[in-house]
């Protein structure tokens, strides 16, 4: 287990290192001079030269990349070129909002999607199963921003039941919750469909296996065989998918945060792109990638810990 953990972490670090290299190398190939973009077209040559030196843009590309990575390892992602604030500080302020959004969405999706999948598998080929199948394929197919826009239009603009803008006042939990409802639904809906389909399929696999047939032969009721014996094994693939899910939700969060004008990692990156504020784009995307990679590692480890077959195969 320990060697597996170390190997997995090493792989994750290599991937992140390559990702950081890719990101910082890409930034150096931007058409145009980042210093000019920040200072405007009428900046004096001396001033833009000073900013170039400050941003390290006059060094050779490999050295710039190496510097970026060395600094990133020390927790320094550079300085926002417009507001002169450390990028880590901006990310630190934005990240809790995005994580709250992502974790709530994934929880809601699991609480609705998993029971739907189990119900569909236990009532295979009934009208309920077919209804769940239609619903889940529709949910999976819907783009997050379409759901977000329609929710905003109906519940915030037309009916005016829920707030349309911002993340709410942190000193009032009710307000934060009200601001979370629509964004969470928009992000969760794809995963409700996805989990329902996945759980139904893996539940059917398990239900058809020999040990469940044996359980029936030993006199287990359908209820006990399905929910006590089958469900545990059927949920194993879901654990791995939830790790991937957290990372994908970070991507979907960009749209939801822009649509609902919520502060967060997604809207931070989006606004930085609009302002051509590269250090923030670079740092923000790197942090998102790191979260994605480590969520996958943790999901992998959970799966191994839950499944003795995987543990012993290592």
């Amino acid at each position, binding site marked *: 287990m320990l060697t597996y953990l170390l190997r997995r972490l090493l792989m994750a670090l290599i*991937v992140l290192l390559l*990702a950081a290299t890719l990101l910082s190398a890409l930034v150096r190939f931007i058409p145009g001079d980042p210093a000019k973009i920040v200072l405007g077209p009428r900046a004096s040559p001396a001033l833009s030269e000073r900013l170039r030196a400050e941003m390290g843009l006059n060094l050779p590309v490999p050295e710039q990349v190496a510097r970026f990575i060395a600094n990133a390892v020390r927790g320094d992602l550079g300085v926002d070129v417009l507001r002169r604030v450390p990028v880590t500080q901006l990310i630190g302020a934005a990240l809790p909002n995005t994580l709250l959004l992502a974790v709530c969405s994934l929880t809601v999706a699991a609480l609705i999607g998993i029971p739907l999948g189990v119900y569909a598998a236990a009532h295979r080929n009934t009208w309920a199963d077919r209804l769940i199948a239609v619903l889940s*394929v*529709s949910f999976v197919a819907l783009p997050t921003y*379409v759901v977000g826009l329609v929710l905003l*239009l109906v519940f915030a603009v*037309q009916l005016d039941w829920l707030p349309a803008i911002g993340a709410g006042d942190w000193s009032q939990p009710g307000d934060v919750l009200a601001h979370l409802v629509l964004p969470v639904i928009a992000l969760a809906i794809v995963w409700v469909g996805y989990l329902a389909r996945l759980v139904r399929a893996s539940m059917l696999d398990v239900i058809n296996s020999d040990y469940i047939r044996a359980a029936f032969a030993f006199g287990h009721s359908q209820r006990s065989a399905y929910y006590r014996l089958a469900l545990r094994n059927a949920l194993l693939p879901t654990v791995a998918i939830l790790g991937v899910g957290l990372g994908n939700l970070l*991507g979907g969060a960009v749209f939801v945060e822009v649509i609902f004008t919520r502060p967060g990692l997604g809207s931070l990156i989006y606004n930085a792109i*609009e302002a051509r504020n590269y250090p923030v784009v670079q740092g923000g995307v790197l942090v998102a990638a790191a979260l994605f990679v480590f969520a996958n590692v943790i999901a992998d480890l959970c799966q191994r810990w839950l499944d003795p077959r995987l543990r012993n195969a290592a």
Partner: protein
Amino acid sequence: MSAEPHPLPLPARRGGVTVVRIARQPGGAFGAIVVLVLMACALAAPLIAPYDYAQQDIPNRLQSPSAQHLMGTDHLGRDVFSRLVYGTRTALATALPGVLIALVIGLALGVLAGYLGGWAEGIVLIITDTFQAFPAILFALALLALIGPSTASVIAVIAIAFAPGYARVVRAQVLALKAQPYVDACRALGAGHLRLVAAHILPNIVAPLVILFAMDVASAITIEAGLSFLGLGVQPPTPSWGVVLSDGFGRIRQSPWPVLFASLALAVTTLGLTLFGEALRDALDPRLSRVVRA
């Protein structure tokens, strides 16, 4: 070529059978209709759309649906229906080449990794892992921030986002096929590497690739519209569903119609293409039912 009647049904009929199999499932029939409507809109946009997509009519801006304007007008008085019809061109003209390029790159990398193994496999796996370490949309944003928004950039982003998925599927399939006895038999008969791959391995991985392609086109369309919605995709005046969404989003309190109809177009399209892909999967190879998407 003998004149004798062939004792077995010829495999040439297979394409026809696939179409029937797809159309027989309700989801597949719906998907097939959506695919046909999309293609018709893209090919015959000037015949279907009642107005030019860029024709402004400021006095009649932000109109509700009416006989003159089926889906109303936007903030410049342009006909929303016409813009959505022309938008199918943008959607298909970015999604299809993007996913096709991804398929070609992924196929090459996947065959290299799966067939050669060793260090080639290691390098390909690290590359795909690295690209898949970013949530696709964030990677697209970072790339577009650098290369600048344009139609070509969107195609490039789609190609880069989907290529690793193809590389992984192709590698897994090639690995499985390489271990088959018939491949050993061919090698024993003196087939070279090129012949083994081109004549004996590739034909057997066409089905999963076709299925994955159909499903990815749906995702690629949502990526194009999403990036255009954020203002980082195709640029006005090119009509894109994402641009209609973003124009409508800015005036959502004055008129809900552009957002509503563009959302509907996207929802029906992605649902239709997904159902079509699933029907295609069931028709081509039922064994793949769960493999491809995992």
